[in-house]
């Protein structure tokens, strides 16, 4: 595939790994958090950790929208589909996301709820057009990448006067979460590991650009390298971070210049700002309530807001106490340190959010990492 295969060359990856090995100082540790699940997936799938020196450690961050969605929002959606007039449209990876007490949208569907997996918000429009007597609700989820397509959907619905279409909005913001990880004393006090730099999101940054990360790098003194999702992109980003750490620099650098600019996608940002505004706070699995981290529809679009339209009230739901997803999302624990990992919690029967999406740390580790670790254990 053009612009994918060229960035997967094994020999170049090995060459960059040797460059990283030559440039790291043996006197210190390099702990880099990859914020995005896309990077976690690439690191696990291509075995990149095996190419890195022992003192360079990757910490998996919270950047998977399904993983950070709290159980309460799943429960709220399940309450919504209890209404016989509602058809709920969801992106596929949300179907197994755990609510409380073993509930999930997949289970609700099996019990008769009208839940449809869609690929695009354009599918939700088609459904609303085909069934004008139904209440078609789109379960909107995702970072800045998926918010513009939701905005476009609302604009089209308005233009087409689709009265039965609305949005259950769960869109969240990346820089707020990074800020929370770096600043939140609760996270620091409960075993979060020190972070020496971030690999910044690829596709989120195509929309917001590199500029929003600049205050973070400056305020917390942490280098941030925006990187693509292919293995060579990740390897180059790690080398760029090592160099910044060695030189005591903390800047925002852009490895993914083929798709990301400093300003981002102005048209997409305009679409979003016309329709959405900030929530005062939003609950994240693993991070708790994060100020200014979520989006909701502006009052002018209340007719498209499922929360207003169906009077859905906020719920608070405790996570399974044995599940270590919260610590894993903070970088405080690795998947194998959770006693549920690989026993009752697998991609077939996920208990925690990190196992649900293929981009979650536990799912990536289950798919690509557990055999590797077993081999390492046997040979060490």
């Amino acid at each position: 595939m053009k612009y994918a295969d060229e960035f997967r060359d094994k020999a170049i990856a090995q060459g960059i790994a040797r460059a990283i090995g030559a440039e790291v100082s043996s006197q210190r540790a390099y702990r880099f958090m990859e914020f995005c699940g896309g990077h976690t997936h690439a690191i696990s799938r291509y075995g990149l950790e095996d190419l890195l020196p022992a003192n360079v450690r990757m910490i998996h961050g919270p950047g998977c929208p399904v993983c950070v969605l709290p159980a309460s929002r799943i429960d709220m959606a399940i309450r919504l589909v209890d209404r016989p007039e509602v058809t709920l449209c969801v992106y596929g990876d949300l179907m197994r996301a755990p609510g409380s007490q073993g509930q999930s949208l997949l289970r609700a569907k099996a019990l008769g709820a009208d839940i449809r997996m869609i690929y695009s918000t354009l599918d939700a429009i088609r459904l609303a057009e085909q069934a004008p007597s139904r209440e078609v609700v789109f379960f909107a989820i995702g970072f800045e990448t998926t918010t513009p397509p939701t905005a476009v959907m609302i604009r089209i619905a308005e233009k087409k006067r689709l009265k039965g279409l609305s949005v259950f909005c769960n869109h969240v913001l990346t820089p707020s979460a990074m800020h929370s990880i770096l600043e939140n004393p609760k996270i620091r006090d409960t075993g979060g590991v020190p972070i020496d730099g971030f690999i910044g999101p690829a596709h989120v940054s195509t929309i917001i650009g590199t500029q929003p990360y600049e205050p973070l790098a400056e305020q917390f003194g942490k280098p941030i390298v925006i990187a693509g999702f292919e293995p060579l992109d990740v390897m180059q980003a790690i080398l760029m971070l090592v160099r910044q750490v060695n030189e005591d620099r903390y800047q925002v650098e852009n490895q993914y210049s083929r798709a990301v600019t400093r300003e981002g996608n102005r048209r997409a940002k305009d679409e979003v700002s016309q329709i959405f505004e900030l929530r005062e706070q939003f609950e994240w699995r693993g991070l708790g309530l994060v100020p200014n981290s979520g989006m909701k529809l502006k009052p002018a679009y209340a007719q498209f807001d499922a929360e207003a339209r169906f009077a859905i009230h906020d719920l608070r739901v405790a996570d399974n106490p044995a599940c270590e997803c919260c610590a894993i999302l903070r970088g405080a624990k690795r998947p194998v340190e959770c006693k549920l990992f690989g026993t009752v919690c697998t991609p077939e029967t996920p208990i925690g959010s990190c196992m649900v999406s293929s981009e979650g740390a536990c799912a990536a580790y289950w798919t690509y990492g557990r055999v590797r670790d077993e081999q390492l254990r046997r040979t060490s």
Partner: protein
Amino acid sequence: MCLSVPAKIAKILPNDMAIVSIDGISLEISIALVDELEVGDCVLVHVGYALAKIDPTEAERTLELLQELGSAGERRS
């Protein structure tokens, strides 16, 4: 959720839609979020929408830099 794939614009359709080709497979997507696209341009496709145009000059520059970094590592070892 955040994964997206590079695809080439094969045909521009009315109403901000386009046909793209991904490794020979055709898909209809929305181009409402990206300005000034032409047939032959490469875009990142995510949940049925083009999110960004891929800049061929920058892609080439990154590949050259990667080659250089890779062979620099070679020389050091």
